[in-house]
């Protein structure tokens, strides 16, 4: 664990790049009994198109809260969030659902595949919510599954696949809607380190191919080191933004 004390903001040099996430002065306060907990305490940053950005922090640092708010799963107490051209902080739940359906892909830590459905059906599920006819959505889902290298497993149920394979299905599911931004919440949290490595490489490859923005939450500094940029969070505040390896 590397402890960074000094407030070392790195200026975003690439002004010409398109900004897809713009967070300004974000606060989130939870009531906890009689007290209030400040999960986020004034956070501002930008993320650009095609960027792979990691939000790093220990548990309880507020990183998950931040991700949830970016994905429109939670509402901020104060501040503004602009994601993929939409100001989502004032949206109601129905509008948020629509926003997610149109702009966002999500990869879960615990895969969250539907156990009764096979790989193709799982991948095709977001398309079901969009009302895409079965024939078309199965074709698209199949293509996605091939993209993540699971061609042989496309009719397997989740319990017939390893964790890595399941997460690849999860990835295919996040990408099938062709989202602007993909959010990943500790995507390798349930995987061993070798599979994690493999997983991250694949994720980078696929996303950069499609020029997608990826925002990943992790507590693992080694994983975060793979990102273009790391946003370190501690106690609800950004302590460091670190430029990683350039692509």
């Amino acid at each position, binding site marked *: 664990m590397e402890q960074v004390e000094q407030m070392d903001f790195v200026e975003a040099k690439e002004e010409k790049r398109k900004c897809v996430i713009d967070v300004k002065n974000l606060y989130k306060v939870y009531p906890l009994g009689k007290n209030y907990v400040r999960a986020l305490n004034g956070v501002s940053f930008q993320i650009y198109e095609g960027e792979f950005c990691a939000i790093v922090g220990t548990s309880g640092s507020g990183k998950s809260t931040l991700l949830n708010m970016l994905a429109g799963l939670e509402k901020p107490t104060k501040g503004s969030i602009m994601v993929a051209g939409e100001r989502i902080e004032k949206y109601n739940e129905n509008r948020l659902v629509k926003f997610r*359906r149109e702009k966002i892909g999500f990869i879960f830590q615990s895969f969250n595949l539907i156990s009764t459905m096979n790989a193709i059906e799982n991948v095709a599920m977001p398309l079901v*919510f969009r009302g895409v006819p079965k024939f078309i959505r199965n074709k698209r889902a199949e293509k996605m599954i091939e993209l993540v290298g699971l061609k042989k497993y496309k009719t397997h149920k989740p319990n017939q696949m390893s964790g890595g394979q399941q997460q690849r299905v999860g990835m295919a599911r996040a990408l099938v809607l062709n989202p602007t931004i993909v959010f990943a919440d500790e995507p390798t949290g349930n995987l061993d380190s070798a599979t994690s490595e493999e997983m991250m490489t694949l994720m980078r490859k696929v996303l950069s191919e499609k020029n997608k923005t990826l925002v990943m939450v992790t507590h693992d500094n080694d994983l975060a080191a793979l990102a273009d940029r790391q946003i370190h969070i501690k106690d609800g505040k950004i302590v460091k933004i670190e430029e990683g390896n350039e692509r």
Partner: protein
Amino acid sequence: MSFLDMISMSAGNLWRRKLRTILTVLGVLIGATSIITMLSLAIGMKKQMLESYESYGSITEIEVRGGDDMGSDGSGQLNKDTLLSDTNMETFSQMEYVEKVSPILEYYGSTKIGKYTGSFQVLGVDKEELAKQKLAKGELPGVSGNKLEVIAGNSILTSFYYMRGDEMIGYWDTQELPDIDLMKQLRKVQMYMNTYDGSSEENSSEENSSEENSSEETTSDTEGDSTEDTSASSEYVDPDISTTTSTQTNNGQIEFPIQVTGMMEGKVDDYSNYSQGLLTDIDQLKAFLIRKFGKNNIPEQPKDNGKPLNEWVYNSFKVEVDRSEHVEEVQKAIQDMGFSASSNKDMIDSMNSSMQMVELVLGGIGMVAFLVAAIGIANTMMMSTYERTKEIGVMKVLGCDMRDIKKLFLSEAAFIGFVGGMVGLFFSIAISHVINNVASKSVETGDMQISLITWWLALAAVGFSTFMGIVAGYFPARRAMKLSPLAAIRTE
């Protein structure tokens, strides 16, 4: 989300928890079966009752009788408005909802056969009514010659009695029917008749009328020549009657020669409108009367200031209304015109209200079971939302519309209700068959439909069952809809 996806998804979800789904469906099945069976009993009973009432006379029928004292106001002046005349018959048949008006002429009479005396009605009804009667043997009356051809009601023999000392002994005392073959032994009937003021110009007016009333006259002409007619009338008319000069009515007995051509079908104690009388074609009766008494001196026909009317006056009309709902209205209208009118409507109404009670009670019993089933559905769906909290969260994160989630749960609940209702319906049909079989064995007629599942009951039951499923699933569905998408993120 398309409808088809919704259905296949909810069916898939239900199938995932087979045992629980089947148990819940079983609950609905029992509820649906109980409610369908109970209501089928109520419907069957109602139908049975209606049918038994129908044998007493149709439920769309109004019987019209004359106004005050057959139109006579005591001064010899006729009040033609309330007379059951051909004119008024025409008026009735012009009324709204009225399909048909048929006149009835009735006479009372008695006869002696051996030691037995029987008294009964002789009724003239129209041809259609006559043709409706089912005969056990013989045939319908043809054209009457000297003898009035009639068919006899199935329970007419119960009105025969004999005297033992001062006691009258008949069927109801002994339960034994007199051994009489009416078709062979009934030859004549003594009619009790009132003739209105016998006019002295009988013969001349008869000649006048013979030109007017062609059809009846031709029959009498072809059947027998006029000499026979006059001889018959002078022979049978009681001399007491013909000689009286009272301006009021005269009472007496006139003998009718009768030929029974057929016996009506039915057991001896089956009651119907005509079961205790002799029935004949009204046109034949009219012709017979004209031949016997002459056009202007027919018994029971009122006269206006001593002059005969040039139309028939009947004892009653049977007014057929198109639907039973209109009976009351038409009945009222006829009563307002000054006639007395009665129908089975009151009887049917009271039956309906008592049947409604039965329906309510039976339906209520069935409903209790159904309510329990509905709670079962609610419970199952509630469990399902708890169990699938995470899954619902994932769906929400992946962009499933909140309304779609609600619809998904509602359709699952509706599915349980529908399947339970359908299977329950088949069960009820089977049970209904069993009930009817058992019931049929207990009665001699061999056909007893106590339980009747009409198509609308079947439809309503399945529809209701589905609807109850939706109602029961509503709160669980709302709960599912409101679940936070964050549930998907939490790791257990």
